[in-house]
């Protein structure tokens, strides 16, 4: 049971670590598979990218680590050109060679992008990816300088040399062996490797300092890691250095005593060389030690300064940005940038928007609003209603009057009243329109319905003219009549039913006389 648990633990929990280590190899195999057959129709498929990659790395290590200088593009082209001629006997015209070298170098630096390897993370159960670059570029003035990354150095050393927490120690042990076996030339190589490791540590120290400058919390973490992996081996390394130095001195003394032939002189020369290199390496190592002491002091200073500045009443840009980083929200940066900008004064149409015109999808046609057929609202004002009522009532009275006039030549008001009472009951006498009708009709002495149609003199004639347009009034066409007031001013008293008091009204008797044709003529 325990065994299974241990196995699962190894499989799942350590998978990320393993992949992290494996990523160093990933670019190499990517490049190895970068077949040249895609380039120039496979003209150069006999070239081995894996070999070229390792050679370029070694070249970079030589320049960056041993000679302590960055590489320019021209130097890389020189190196690759030499390699192509030496190892592949490939002599090309200048233009074509440049093109090939550009292609190779672009592949190795992956066009400036990191190589990304995807894998399954069994802990989080998601897809994860690891990234790695072989060559890093920096800009100095207007020239680009290339350096090999620490990961690439580790990969290169992994391919042959042994890895351990302190590479310096392993190399020292190796050196010891070489001195014992009198392989002084091999010893020099080992010392160079020691130097390269020392240089790597110094580089790492600089990185830690830079990180401290930009983010104290990350910096402190990196410093701790650096102390654990790099600095704790110092004492042991120093001990081994002096031990090797002793060995060297002994070997030299022994060689000096027994020097006889040319071969021995050669060996002695090797010893001297190795001794000088070893001294250089020790000095280098000593510098690293003082560098690390310096790092500690400066780190303390920075942390102190940071603590102090947090207490001061100033706005802390770095604090703000670190908070934004933690919250993973870059939009917060706008708060820092916007206030710095000049006022925007130009408001204009941008030409760039013409590009957008092409990509904007056509608008979906908008459906027109459907308007139902609505009846036009007629507004009727109070006076219109009144007028309508009046003309309606007048029409009723006028029709009665005209009918009477058609039947008899003369109609008296009292006769008309009786007729009206029969038709509309005596309610009509309670209607004010009846009285206004009498007033209006008395305004003229005689009426000619045909003439009325053309010209109206009074309000009553106006109503008559409108009435005459109705088809049922056609039968009255040509009717003429006059009003005759009784000279003796006979008063007509009419009783109105239903009204209790003063239920009588008094008018003057009027005679309506039809005017005959011949009379009118």
């Amino acid at each position, binding site marked *: 049971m325990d065994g299974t648990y241990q196995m699962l633990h190894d499989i799942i929990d350590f998978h*990320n670590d393993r992949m*992290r280590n494996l990523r160093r190899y990933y670019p190499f195999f990517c490049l190895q598979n970068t077949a040249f057959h895609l380039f120039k129709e496979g003209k150069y498929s006999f070239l081995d990218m894996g070999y070229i990659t390792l050679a370029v790395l070694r070249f970079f290590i030589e320049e960056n680590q041993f000679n302590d200088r960055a590489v320019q593009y021209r130097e890389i082209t020189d190196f690759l050109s030499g390699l192509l001629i030496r190892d592949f006997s490939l002599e090309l015209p200048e233009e074509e060679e440049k093109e090939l070298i550009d292609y190779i170098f672009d592949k190795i*630096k992956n*066009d*400036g*992008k*990191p190589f990304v390897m995807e894998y399954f*993370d069994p802990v*989080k159960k*998601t*897809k*994860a*990816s*690891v990234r*790695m670059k072989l060559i890093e*570029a*920096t*800009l100095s*003035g*207007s020239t*680009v300088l290339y350096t090999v990354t620490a990961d690439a150095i580790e990969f290169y050393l992994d391919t042959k040399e042994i890895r351990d927490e302190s590479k310096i120690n392993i190399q020292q042990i190796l050196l010891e062996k070489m001195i014992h076996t009198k392989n002084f030339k091999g010893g020099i190589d080992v010392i160079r490797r020691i130097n390269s490791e020392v240089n790597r540590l110094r580089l790492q120290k600089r*990185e830690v300092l*830079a*990180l401290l*400058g*930009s*983010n104290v919390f990350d910096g402190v973490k*990196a410093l701790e890691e650096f102390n654990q992996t790099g600095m704790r081996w110092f004492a042991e390394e120093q001990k081994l250095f002096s031990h090797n130095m002793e060995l060297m001195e002994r070997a030299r003394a022994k060689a000096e005593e027994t020097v006889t032939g040319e071969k021995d002189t050669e060996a002695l020369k090797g010893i001297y060389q190795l001794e000088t290199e070893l001294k250089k390496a020790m000095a280098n190592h000593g510098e690293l030690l003082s560098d690390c002491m310096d790092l500690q002091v400066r780190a303390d200073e920075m942390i102190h300064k940071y603590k102090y*500045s947090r207490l*001061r*009443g*100033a*706005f*802390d*840009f*770095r*604090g*703000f940005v670190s*908070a934004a*980083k*933690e*919250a*993973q*929200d*870059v939009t*917060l*940066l*706008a*708060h*820092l*940038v*916007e*206030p*710095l*900008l*000049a*006022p*925007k*004064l130009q408001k204009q149409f*941008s030409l760039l928007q013409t590009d957008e015109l092409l990509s904007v999808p056509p608008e979906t046609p908008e459906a027109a609003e459907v308007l139902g057929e609505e009846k036009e609202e007629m507004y009727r004002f109070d006076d219109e209603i009144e007028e309508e009522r009046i003309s309606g009532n007048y029409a009723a009275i006028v029709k009665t009057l005209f009918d009477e006039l058609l039947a008899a030549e003369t109609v008296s008001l009292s006769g008309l009243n009786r007729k009206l009472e029969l038709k509309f009951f005596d309610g009509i006498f309670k209607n004010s329109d009846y009285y206004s009708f009498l007033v209006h009709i008395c305004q003229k002495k005689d009426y000619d319905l045909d003439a009325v149609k053309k010209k109206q003199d009074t309000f009553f004639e106006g109503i008559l003219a409108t009435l005459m347009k109705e088809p049922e009034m056609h039968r009255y066409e040509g009717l003429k009549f006059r009003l005759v007031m009784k000279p003796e001013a006979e008063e007509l008293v009419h009783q109105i039913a239903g009204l209790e008091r003063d239920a009588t009204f008094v008018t003057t008797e009027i005679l309506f006389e039809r005017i005959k044709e011949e009379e009118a003529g």
Partner: protein
Amino acid sequence: MEQKSLEKATEILAALLLGEPVEAKNGKHAGLYEAYHESGEVNDALELMLKKLNLRVYEYNYALYLTVGEKNRVFGYSNEDLKRLMGLRLNKELYLCYYLIYQAAACFYQDSATYNYREYIKLEDLLEATNHALSGMVSDLHRFSNETPEETSFTALAISWDELPVIANEDTQGVRAGRGSKSGFVKLVFNFLVSQGLFTEVGERYYPTGRMHALIRRYFEEEKGRLYELQMRSSKGGEDGAAY
């Protein structure tokens, strides 16, 4: 208030809006600076107009500088405006430019009161500073990174920076502003900062202007409370987000 004072205040505002220097020494608006400084009425009238327009003026080193503050709907820029102005296409490119602008300011100021006494920076200084500042995030990416990060996250910003080559083409002489490389981006940002009157360029060296100093020192000093609150809220939000 006298008509004359109002006139002077309007003149000052117009000059500031047009980006013309209003300063005591030389310059055609020295008289305006004097009026601002010596007449309380002019001062009041200007303050009143600024307040209504949501603008602010800071006095620094015998000169006046105007800021539009944040989210100013009349004089401020929208993301689209800025992208158009800088020749960018994507939001993430704009955020990268924001970050570069912050880095450029951070080269001179750690906080609004601590000036590093640095005279100028060069293109490669800003490039290097940004590399260092993002190195922590990039090295985290070396360890693990899951799926596509959100566009507005710092992880996305670090990735887009990391994936840019230092220079677009080795053969060309000098650096050109562009979106294809780190140096191109830095150049683009510097060009923009120069056009905004925040830096001046002399022989590929970029010197911060009085305007830059004034705004960093005064504006952020004044606004620190609000920004601090924002910072606290965002970090709290981050924690809350992590809890779910």
